[in-house]
């Protein structure tokens, strides 16, 4: 399941729903991304996430589908926020349920890596030096490429 929203989410409640949906799964893995108060050596007082409504939902849906194809998952959740967020606020949640702990963990790691380069969001940081756009991180592209290279090889991991 995917959700794109301005409001915050409740991690405990989301995981509760996920495990209710995936009855019998032995493993839940989750990742939460938060706004940092520092970036590139500068204090960040807020971050505004802009996105491409419509395409965002399509891309998140494809990312979920790709994860389900690669691993035996009983449930998948991606919640991504947009709008203006302050340091410490939650930006994104990915969570997976599987019978196998390695599948759950690898899939949630994959989901967050692929969101970085494939989800149409752009981030504007507010700093004492003024506003600035967050550049794409070459390490994120490298992470994406590692998953592409693993395609078809991961099985039940």
């Amino acid at each position, binding site marked *: 399941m995917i959700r794109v929203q301005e409001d915050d989410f409740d991690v405990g409640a989301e995981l509760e729903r996920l495990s209710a949906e995936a009855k019998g799964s032995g493993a839940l893995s989750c990742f939460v991304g938060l706004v940092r108060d520092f970036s590139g050596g500068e204090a960040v007082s807020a971050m505004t996430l802009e*996105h491409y409504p419509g395409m965002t939902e399509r891309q998140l849906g494809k990312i979920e589908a790709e994860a389900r194809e690669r691993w035996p998952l009983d449930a998948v959740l991606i919640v991504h926020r947009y709008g203006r967020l302050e340091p410490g606020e939650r930006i994104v949640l990915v969570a997976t349920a599987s019978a196998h702990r390695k599948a759950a963990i690898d899939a949630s790691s994959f989901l967050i*890596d692929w969101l970085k*380069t*494939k989800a149409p*969001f*752009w*981030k504007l940081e507010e700093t004492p030096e003024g506003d600035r756009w967050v550049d*794409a*991180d070459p390490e*994120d592209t490298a992470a994406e490429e590692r998953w592409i290279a693993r395609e078809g090889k991961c099985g039940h991991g």
Partner: protein
Amino acid sequence: MQMLYFGWVRQRIGVPAETVAPPDEVTDVDGLIDWLSGRSDAYAEALRNRDTLRVAVNQELCEFDAPVSVGDEVALFPPMTGG
């Protein structure tokens, strides 16, 4: 044709969206960008470096040689930074 701009592309062009009617010679994204760049310095500046531009046609990511036609939704934006 419906244009959408995001991130610093939107900021430099100055509008988030607009409807455009490029001439018939414009048949792909490359041609569309060239044509838009001729409209003003702001467009030229925003669209100058294609290495840092990404394109979606009808909400699907594509390359600069992808065809475009009347009725398409074309979005231009910087590399995505989700997550």
